C-alpha cells in the first residue's frame, strides 16, 4: 500500500502526522496552563488539591504526546531533529528541564517525606506551565521566522549564533506566539476545570478567569497572525528547489490551499464559540467549552503546520543561508523508512480510540471532595 506512494507523497503524509501530533500537543498543553492557575483558582489546600488531581489524571497524555512528537519528527525528518535540537540547544534544554520537574511534581506533591515540600512541587508545576508553553510556542514560531544555522555537504549542521536558540526570544513574532500559546493553555485549562471540577468557589473564579486569559490570548494570537500573513515567507522554487523570499507567502499559502483555509477558519470559530458560549451561557452550556475550543485549537495549529510545510515552503528556514533551509523534501527519511513508519501509523486510530474510551471512563463524573476522600491514589 504505502510502498507504492511516491517519496513526496510519503513526506507529505508524515508532515500531516507530525502536524497532527503538534496540534494535539498544543491542545493538551491545557495541563500546563492549569498548573499556572492552581493558586489563582484554588484558595485553600483542598481546592488546590482538587485542581492538581483533575490535571494530574491528564498530565501523562501531554508528556507522552511531546515525546511522540519528538520521536515522530526524528523518524520522519531527522535533519530537523539534528539541526534544531543540536543547534537551538538552550531553548530545547530549558523546555526539557521544565518537563523533568513536572513529571515528578504530581506524584511527589502530596506524599509524606517528599523532601522539598508541597509548595516547591507546586512551583515546579508553575514553572513547567509558564516556560513549557511560552518556549514551545516560540520554537514553533521559528518555522515562520527562521533561525541562524548552516548545513554542510554531508548534512551536518551548525548553529551560527553563540546564543543557541535564545536569540529567538528577541523576535516579536516568536514572542507573540509563545505568549498566545501560554494564554491559550490557560484558557483551555479554565474550560477544562469548568467541565471537570465540582466546587462552587472554583467555578465562580474560573468563570471570571476565562476572559482574563482569553482576551490576552486573542491579542497575542492576532498579533502573530498579522505578522504571519503580512510578512515575506520562505518559498521554494518547485523545479530548482532554490529557496527565496516571497512577499505574503503564508497568505498565499492560505489562499492557494482552500482546505487549509477552511480548517484554519473553522478552528478559529470553534475556539471562539467554546470561550464565548461558556462565558455568556455559563449555567446551561459550559460543559462542552473545552471540547469546542480544544477541537478548534487542534484545527488551527494543524493548519499552521500545513502552512509552514506545504505549498513549496521551507518549514525550517535558515536566515544564515536561505539555501540551507529545511523543506519536507530535503530533510526527510528515506522512502523505505517512511513506508515502514506509515504502516505503524495505522495504529494511531486504535490509540486514539482507547485514549477516548479511558478518558470518558475516568471523567464521567466531576471530581469533588468526596471523591478525593475515597480515592486511594492522590496527587
Amino acid at each position: 500500500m504505502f510502498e507504492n506512494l511516491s517519496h513526496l507523497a510519503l513526506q507529505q503524509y508524515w508532515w500531516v502526522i507530525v502536524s497532527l501530533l503538534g496540534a494535539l500537543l498544543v491542545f493538551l498543553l491545557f495541563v500546563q496552563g492549569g498548573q499556572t492557575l492552581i493558586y489563582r483558582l484554588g484558595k485553600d489546600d483542598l481546592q488546590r488539591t482538587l485542581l492538581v488531581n483533575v490535571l494530574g489524571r491528564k498530565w501523562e497524555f501531554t508528556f507522552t504526546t511531546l515525546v511522540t512528537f519528538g520521536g515522530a519528527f526524528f523518524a520522519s525528518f531527522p535533519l530537523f531533529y539534528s539541526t534544531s535540537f543540536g543547534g537551538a540547544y538552550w531553548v530545547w534544554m530549558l523546555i526539557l528541564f521544565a518537563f523533568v520537574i513536572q513529571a515528578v511534581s504530581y506524584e511527589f506533591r502530596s506524599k509524606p517525606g517528599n523532601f522539598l515540600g508541597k509548595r516547591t512541587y507546586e512551583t515546579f508545576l508553575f514553572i513547567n506551565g509558564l516556560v513549557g508553553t511560552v518556549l514551545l510556542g516560540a520554537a514553533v514560531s521559528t518555522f515562520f521566522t527562521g533561525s541562524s544555522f548552516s548545513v554542510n555537504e554531508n548534512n551536518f549542521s551548525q548553529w551560527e549564533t553563540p546564543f543557541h536558540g535564545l536569540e529567538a526570544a528577541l523576535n516579536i513574532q516568536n514572542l507573540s506566539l509563545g505568549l498566545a500559546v501560554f494564554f491559550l493553555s490557560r484558557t483551555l485549562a479554565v474550560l477544562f476545570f469548568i467541565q471537570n471540577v465540582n466546587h462552587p468557589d472554583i467555578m465562580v473564579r474560573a468563570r471570571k478567569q476565562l476572559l482574563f486569559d482569553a482576551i490576552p490570548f486573542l491579542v497575542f494570537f492576532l498579533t502573530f497572525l498579522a505578522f504571519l500573513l503580512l510578512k515575506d515567507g520562505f518559498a521554494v522554487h518547485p523545479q530548482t528547489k532554490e529557496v527565496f523570499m516571497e512577499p505574503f507567502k503564508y497568505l498565499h499559502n492560505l489562499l492557494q490551499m482552500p482546505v487549509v483555509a477552511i480548517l484554519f477558519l473553522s478552528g478559529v470559530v470553534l475556539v471562539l464559540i467554546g470561550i464565548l458560549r461558556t462565558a455568556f451561557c455559563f449555567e446551561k452550556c459550559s460543559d462542552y467549552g473545552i471540547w469546542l475550543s480544544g477541537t478548534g485549537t487542534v484545527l488551527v495549529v494543524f493548519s499552521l503546520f500545513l502552512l509552514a510545510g506545504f505549498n513549496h515552503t521551507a518549514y525550517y528556514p535558515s536566515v544564515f543561508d536561505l539555501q540551507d533551509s529545511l523543506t519536507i523534501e530535503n530533510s526527510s527519511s528515506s522512502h523505505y523508512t517512511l513506508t515502514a513508519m506509515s504502516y505503524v501509523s495505522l495504529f494511531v486510530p486504535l490509540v486514539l480510540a482507547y485514549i477516548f474510551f479511558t478518558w470518558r471512563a475516568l471523567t464521567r463524573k466531576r471530581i469533588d471532595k468526596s471523591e478525593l476522600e475515597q480515592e486511594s491514589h492522590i496527587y
Partner: protein
Amino acid sequence: MDPSLIDWSRAQFALTAIYHWFFVPLTLGLSFIIAFMETMYIRTGDEHWKRITKYWMTLFGINFAIGVATGIILEFEFGTNWSNYSWFVGDIFGAPLAIEGILAFFLESTFIAVMFFGWNKVGKKFHLLSTWLVAAGANLSALWILVANAWMQYPAGMHFNPDTARNEMVNFWEVLFSPVAINKFLHTVQSGYVLASVFVIGISSWYLLKKREEMLAKRSMLVAGVFGLVMSVFIIVTGDHSARLMAKYQPVKFAAMENLYEGQTHAPLVAFGMLKVNESMEEHKKEDFIFKLEIPNFLSYMAFLDANAYVPGIKDLIHGNPERNIMPTTEKIDKGRVAISALKTYKEAKKSGDTAKSDSALTLLNANFNHFGYGFLKDEHEAIPPIKLTFYSFRIMVGLGFLFVLLFIISLWLVLKNKTANKKWFYYSAICMIPLAYLATQMGWMVAEVGRQPWIIQDVMPVSAAVSKLTTGSVQVTFVLFAITFTVLLIADIKILLTQIKKGPKEGGTSHV
C-alpha cells in the same frame, strides 16, 4: 573536535542514562508483579490481595514518575548532544523511537491512569486488564529503545547512501529481529524482573523484621521469589548467549571484558581477579593481574561453544594477527580514511557533473565502507575501550546475579516451609540485596556501553564524529544542572519511598497526606 566537548557530552549522556536506569528496571518488573497480585485478587476474591496490590502500586507510582522524568531527556539528547549522529543514522534509529511513542508510551500512560484512579470507576476485569496493559506498555517501550540500542552495537538492515551522506534502513525486520536486539531486549528486561523481585523480597523482609504486615510480606515474598527465580534461569541463558554474540560482533569489547591481551585456544575464564593500578594500553598484558582465579577452557567454550576455540586478545585485534586472519586496526584506519576521502571526492565530482570521477569515487567508497568509522580515529589505541571498568563491571554483575539466585531459593524455601519467623540473618541480607540489585544492573550497562567505546555505532561512527558542535561550557552547565536536579529528585524519591514503606499500607491500600 574539542576532546573536552566529547568527554562532557559523553558524561552528560552517561549521567542521564545512569539516573534513568535507577528507575526503569523496577518499573519493568514491578508492573508484572503487581499484575500477578491483582490477578490473584480477581481469581480468589480475597481482599488481602487487593490491599497488597494497592500497596505495591503506590511504590510503583513513586518510582514511575521519576523514570518518566529522566527518560524524556535521553530521547532528546540524541538530538541536542549528538546531532551528527541524529542525521547519520536518524533514518534507522528514529523509527524505533517513534514506534515506542505511538505503540508503547500511549498504552502505558493511558492505562496507568485507569490503574491508579479506576478502582471505583471501571469494572474489576477492566481494571485488571489495565494493570496488565501497563506492564505490557512498559515492557514494549523497553523493546523499542533496546532495539535501537542493539542496532548501535550491531548495525544491521542498512546501507550507506552517499548522496544524503547517511545510513538508510533497507530491512526493518533485520533491525527488529537482529540476534543482538532480541537477546538484548530479553536480557535487559529480565534484569528488571530480577531487580524488582529483589526489591519486593527486601522490603517484605523489613516488615518481617519489624513483625509488621506479615501476610503482606509473606505473600509478596512468594510472588517475587517465584518470579525472580524463574527469571534468573532465563537471565543466565540470555547472558550466556550475549557473551557469544559479543565475541562474534564486538570482539574488542569481549577481550576487554576478559582483560585478554593475547589470544589463545583453550582460553580460561578469569572468575575472580584483580588488576594492577597502572594501565597503559601498549603495556597492557596478562601479567597485569595481581591475582586471578581461572576456570580452564571456559572462555573458549563461553565464546564459541568449543573448548578448543581461539579467542582473540586485544593485541591481536589492535595489532592484527595474520595467522588468524585478523586485520590490524591501523589498516582499518587507513581504509576508513580512504572511504571518507572517497565520499568527499564523490560529492565534489557530483557537484561538478564529473560522472566518471564520481563513479570511481563511489566504487572506492563502497570497497572501504566497512571500515568507514575507523577513519575518524586518531590512532589504533583509541579503539580500545576502558579495560578495568569493563572487566570489573562484568564480574560484579555476574557475581551478584548468582547471589540473587540464592536469595530467591532461600526466600521461597522459608515461605513454603513457613519458617520465616525470627530469621534475622535472612532479613538483613535481603534488605542489603536491594542496593546490590541496582548495582548489578548498572554494571550490566557499564559492560554494554563502556565496553563498546569509542563507538557510538559499532565500526561505523565513533563518538568523536557524532557530537553536536557546541561549546564545552554549554554542556558543562547543563551537565551540572542535570546532576543537581537528578540528585535532588533521587533523594526525594528515596525519602518518599522510605516514608511510604515505614507507614505501610492503610486499609484502603495506600497512604497519603
